[in-house]
């Protein structure tokens, strides 16, 4: 733009308006500047994704789930010998019952009930399943709600454990930092082994919730950082990661646009006539022919 005499008021105002108009629109220089700023912000998360991704890949599924000492105990055959009570009254209060599964928990028969309580929300409260239905568990010997005791929890934990460590201690827990997604309550059973294995048993149904060990804290931290879900729920549809994903996509696309631009300006072609190579050929001439050929 040509220089404007600031004393010429009319032309000065016109030039100012033109300049304002130009700056309000999209320009390559603005995009490059934004791309650089985006790079500065994203590099931290990119490093986190890289390090945590490498950690997951290096550890493998078994170690990530702390299943080095895990043994899936085979289901016991049905062996109802003593009392067997079907809790008809309680079952009828659940709502629409779709399935009642009879199975053994250690040596005790158990009813696992799948139901829809949508029409009777005030009655029994069970655990929600992923498909919108709920689950409840009953003791088939007493007809009462299932309640895992400490002795049974210890036996179930030992059945699921393959390691060489001895049983160390059992603690009843309301919830656990080890398992942020588990609603609890239940038992934590510790084993004295090299990995400091601990097994969680659900009090509501007697299921083995998970094994955890001394690496689990670091693994949880890695998941939090990788999924950007700092609550530990491992929800990868949260707003932070969606924003970071879109931002990264924009960063990559603008990077490609910039590479194309550099290519068109001759950044990847060694030809003296192209604008991008002017300084390069100038330096080359200086080295080859000396200072006298500079001009």
């Amino acid at each position, binding site marked *: 733009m040509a220089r404007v005499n600031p004393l010429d008021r009319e032309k000065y105002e016109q030039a100012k308006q033109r300049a304002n108009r130009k700056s309000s629109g999209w320009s390559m220089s603005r995009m490059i500047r934004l791309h650089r700023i985006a*790079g*500065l912000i994203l*590099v931290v998360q*990119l*490093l986190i994704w*890289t*390090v945590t*991704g*490498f950690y*997951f*890949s*290096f550890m*493998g*599924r078994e170690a990530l789930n702390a299943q080095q000492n895990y043994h899936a105990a*085979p*289901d*016991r*055959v*049905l*062996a*109802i010998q003593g009392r*067997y009570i*079907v809790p*008809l009254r309680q*079952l*009828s209060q659940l709502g*629409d*019952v*779709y*399935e*009642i*599964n*009879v*199975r*053994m928990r250690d040596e005790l028969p158990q*009813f696992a009930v799948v139901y*829809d309580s949508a029409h009777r929300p005030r009655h029994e409260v069970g655990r929600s399943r*992923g*498909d*919108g*239905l709920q689950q409840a568990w009953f003791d088939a010997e007493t007809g009462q709600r299932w309640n895992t005791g400490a002795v049974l929890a210890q036996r179930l934990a030992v059945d699921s454990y393959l390691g060489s460590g001895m049983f160390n201690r059992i603690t009843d827990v309301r919830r656990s930092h080890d398992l942020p997604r588990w609603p609890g309550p239940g038992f934590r059973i510790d084993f004295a082994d090299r990995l400091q294995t601990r097994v969680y048993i659900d009090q509501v149904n007697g299921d083995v919730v998970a094994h955890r060990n001394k690496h689990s804290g670091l693994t949880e931290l890695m998941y939090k950082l990788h999924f950007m879900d700092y609550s530990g729920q491992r*929800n*990868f*549809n949260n707003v932070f*990661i*969606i924003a970071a*994903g879109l931002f990264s996509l924009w960063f990559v696309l603008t990077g490609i646009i910039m590479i194309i631009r550099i290519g068109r300006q001759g950044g990847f072609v060694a030809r003296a006539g192209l604008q991008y190579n002017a300084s390069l050929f100038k330096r080359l001439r200086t080295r080859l022919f000396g200072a006298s050929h500079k001009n």
Partner: protein
Amino acid sequence: MVILQLPYIHGHHLSQQADQPLSQMELLEQVPKLQTRYPEATQAALVRRFIDGDFRYVFRVRTQDTRFLVNAFDLEIVSLSADDVRHIADLTYADSPVPKIHAKELILDAAEMPQEVNPAHAPVWRVEFADARKTTFYFAAETGDLLTQRHQAWRVFDVMWMLHIMDYTDRHRISTPWLYAFTVLTFFIAITGLWLLLQRHVLKLWRRSWRA
């Protein structure tokens, strides 16, 4: 991958409960007899399933190796026909009107299972509907249980997952040499980029301030 919600990918919205709610729960009293008749049974689940033109009470029996249905009254084994599976698939489809079934096949061998479903589920009935999402249900061949559901969004997600973990064959191994190589390379690029940036902006400023 992060924009598509995980419950949507799992396709729970595609299916609904095909069984009827139970009203004759006293049939559970048959379980001690069932365990005598089928001593290898590890589980017996009472359900009311559409079989042979009507909703019938059956026990879904599991053993260590097999699963099958038995009549809840006389404890005789019940087998499902192709027609039963078609009816169960229609009842399972969540939207209405239910579209036509585009393809239905019984897959007996684990080696012939499509990649989109776990081979351990074999034998299965594969039922594909003629809708825009190409909804596909997989039912256990002996019991008619819905094992899993697939749709186009799941298939796109699966391709994205394959690219993400760089396992181009099985799509479930997270420890592939490709992934190791690219992770190390990305880390190197990010670190050197950061170093160049620091050198260009921070170190220069720092040196200049010392000279001044």
